[in-house]
């Protein structure tokens, strides 16, 4: 059974993590109002990754978990990274080639398609 100090320590740790998550959320919100170009996306994703790590490490208890559970957690993420990498190689190296069912506008190049009609 956990003693009082163990619970108090856990509760304090959860409280600090919660405050950090809210602070990160606000920093993510603030960064979206700055003109950072492609760094808007990167900063948003980096902050989200830090928040997800806090949730996984402390709330989901990967910190206390054995290697088997940590391995399962990493494998899911790793397989997704491999799949997204392989898919990216395909999509990013081809021009837009719509199928017969797609609208004519989608035959436009990405640059032209980004312009207002």
């Amino acid at each position, binding site marked *: 059974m956990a003693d*009082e100090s163990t619970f108090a320590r856990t509760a304090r740790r959860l409280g600090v993590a919660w405050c950090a998550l809210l602070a990160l*959320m606000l920093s993510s919100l603030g960064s979206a109002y700055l003109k950072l170009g492609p760094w808007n996306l990167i900063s948003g994703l980096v902050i989200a990754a830090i928040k997800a790590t806090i949730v996984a490490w402390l709330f989901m208890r990967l910190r206390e978990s*054995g290697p088997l559970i940590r391995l399962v957690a990493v494998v899911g993420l790793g397989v997704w990274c491999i799949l*997204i990498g392989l898919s990216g190689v395909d999509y990013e190296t081809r021009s837009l080639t719509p199928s017969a069912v797609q609208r004519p506008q989608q035959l436009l190049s990405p640059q032209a*398609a980004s312009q*207002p009609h």
Partner: protein
Amino acid sequence: MTAATLLEPKDEPDIGKLGMWVFLASEVLFFGGLFLAYLYGRTHWPLGWAAASRHTDVVLGTVNTALLLTSSAVVALAVACEEDARQRRWTARLLALTAALGAVFLVIKGFEWHAEWDEHLFPGPSFALDVAGAQEFFVLYFVMTGLHAVHMIVGVGALAILARGRSRDREWARSGHLEVAALYWHFVDVVWIFLYPLLYLVQRHG
């Protein structure tokens, strides 16, 4: 390497926890395809993506993010209370609070969808924005937030049932099951952590 070599003798494999982690790994791939579609759209139609994102309600999105982060912390505290006999009386209340926060999230999301429907932001012939890619953004917006909401409904239901069971001291609402349900809830939170900047914060300064 076998599972046996990865385990210390003291670490008895907790089948419930391990099973939930395997399920969550499959969920990463489930949502992963949508995130790939999102990245493709954002890199190919950056202007359309930015214009469409500015039509999402950033205030409600931020409030919902705070609600979900808070609910995750609360359910983690509920699991910690369950493990300490002197704090166990708080477990059911904290689980109920988590489910309530999730329900408020869903209500706010419902208001958001309703407003977006009224503003003709739902993809279709009367779509309001005339920028290439904007409609594709909202296709993904509704699919991703809709799927997330389905997961939320399952989570709110599970936590509400566990809160009721725990308050009546039922055997099935004890520590092991609580931790498994909490893992699921945290995962739903993690998905939203990524949806928030990707859907609401594409380019607010424009």
